[in-house]
């Protein structure tokens, strides 16, 4: 019995110290996941590349071979072209890449999710996208002056109807 009291006391102290240690490490030290005085810009959207460049008219012979209800005059690749996106910050292009279509057959839209760290403060942002490989003009483009706060999350999204959206 006396031994048990000793075990309760000594074992209790050890267990308590261990549990305190665990509780302390359960919320500290803090982790700085992003440098101070930076803002996070995310460029993220979904958009389908324009397949029209790959389309051609069927020849009359080809059309004749098809059942009457399937005689579409044009054939296009199932595969979509990639989209090409550029982001310019304060006159410098900091992101430029083409995003491949999704899906096994490449028939799905291109999806973009890019994280870019920018120092807090004012910036000129210009974003452009080309979705048709046949042309070299950017079909979509938008510019915005922003003043980013430290730790701010800023998003450039895209909607088919309204073009680029800054949030």
């Amino acid at each position: 019995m006396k031994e048990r009291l000793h075990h309760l006391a000594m074992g209790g102290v050890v267990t308590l110290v261990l549990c305190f240690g665990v509780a302390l490490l359960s919320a500290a030290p803090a982790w700085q996941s992003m440098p101070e005085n930076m803002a996070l810009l995310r460029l993220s959207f979904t958009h389908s590349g324009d397949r029209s460049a790959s389309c051609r008219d069927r020849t009359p012979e080809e059309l004749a071979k098809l059942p009457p209800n399937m005689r579409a005059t044009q054939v296009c690749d199932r595969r979509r072209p990639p989209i090409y996106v550029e982001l310019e910050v304060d006159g410098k292009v900091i992101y430029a890449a083409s995003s491949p279509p999704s899906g096994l057959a490449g028939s799905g839209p291109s999806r973009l999710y890019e994280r870019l760290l920018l120092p807090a403060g004012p910036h000129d942002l210009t974003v452009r996208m080309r979705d048709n490989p046949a042309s070299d003009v950017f079909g979509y483009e938008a510019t915005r002056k922003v003043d980013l706060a430290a730790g701010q999350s800023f998003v450039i999204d895209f909607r088919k109807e309204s073009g680029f959206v800054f949030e």
Partner: protein
Amino acid sequence: MTGIRATLKRGFDRLERLLDTLFGSDWNPLANLGPLGWFLFWIVAGTGIYLFIFFDTGVVNAYQSVEWLSGSQWFHAGLARSLHRYASDLLVVIMLVHLVREWSFDRYRGKRWFSWFTGVPVIWFVYMSGITGYWLVWDKLAQYVALTTTELLDALPFFAEPIARNFLTPESLSGRFFTLMVFLHIAIPLLLLLMMWIHIQRIASARTRPPRGLSVLTLVALVIVSFALPAPLQGPADLSTIPARVGLDWFILGLYPVIDLVPPSVIWTGAMLITVLLSGLPWLPPRKEAEAAQVFLDFCNGCARCEDDCPYAAITMVPRSDGAPFPQEAKVDPDRCVACGICMGSCPSSTPFRRSGPLITGIDLPGRTLERVRTEVITAAADLSGPGRVMTIACEHGAAGVPAKGRVILPCVAMAPPSLFDFILSRDLADSVCIAGCAERDCFNRLGGKWTEERIARTRDPRLRNRVSRERLLTLWAGPSERGRLPEALRDFSARVAVLGPVPKKTSLAADDEGTADLGLATKDNPT
């Protein structure tokens, strides 16, 4: 590898000896890591269910409800929250130490692979349970966890739409997604429970409950700490900002900084490699194990003692196949038998006294038969002389697991049937027997120490016969780091035995009538 293992093993042994003096060997936490893991799981499950009563599962209200229960309801719901958190953290610690300990004690290779192999997914489920839990609080830390986790998951080719897009702006997070997280935080722990249950399926009477004293100490300590350092909240999540600096739970989220710093492809490849490597460890290299135990039906009466005593659930009782008038017979599953010999020590037919014919028992180790053990004992006796002769029956994993004069080393001390001690004394092979096993807190073969104690205390079959004087038996439970203690303990014992004098001749003659260990007779274990 073997060098690291030996060092770690000695380290554990030393530390555990210290803890023996602080907690007592039965409450030693390092010898109860598996049971403690279960205990902590139940604390986490219980407090989780309680928290759920007060938790609001909506995106907007989740944080408010946690703030409310941590604030004005601190004395019950807040306590439950802190307990839920700290018990999970402690579970991670316990699990990792348990893993290292089982590795260093080499209890995972060969036919003991199953617990190890099924322990690996347990690690994943523990972490996934914790991560989904942090998510639900929907404070700054939750936001960090959500973002980092989804960005990591998006690197896998499984999701059509990047799931990280759910956390782009305050408007993009839908209640549906949050409901999914709540569901996952219930489903994953349930799967964890299933995995934990599978984990112990191949060991007999696995200990899933720590000794009561240790449970009380652990729970009380967790409650005190929960009141003293209540789990913090790090301000509501706000998707228009990025939580650049967060107080991290280093147990559950300790790898998140690595995820921040290393490309996702490296993280996933690393995680997969570690998982595969850990899972394959029992075969890298496999242990060479002695041949499985073998049943000799002519000497088996189907008493099922071996089934009761096998620590690895390797024996089952099956309907009799040889027409003998017993309903059952023992059957060994060679894929599970680690050749510890404990069954041989439990069989009523295992009596070394028999004189005529070869010495066969109901269940025997082909690589180390009872007959051979008897010969070894007789040979070892030749090395003993003088008054107070001590023969040592040692386990190969304990302090006495190195060859010495007058010592017979077995895979486990429980391989020796109590009749062997009787045999040594009544045949005048020695004046006393030292039974030297693993440290008392934990037997390499899980149950060998316990069975030996109970057999010689005459509370478990096969019982030590009454005529064997307890004074002539010394049980010495000591780990490999206590080797130095051995000579002195043996010398002291020998001196005490010398005072007792030789074993009285009368009883030793009477012993020899015990020649029959055959069917029927043997079952009764006729006590004198």
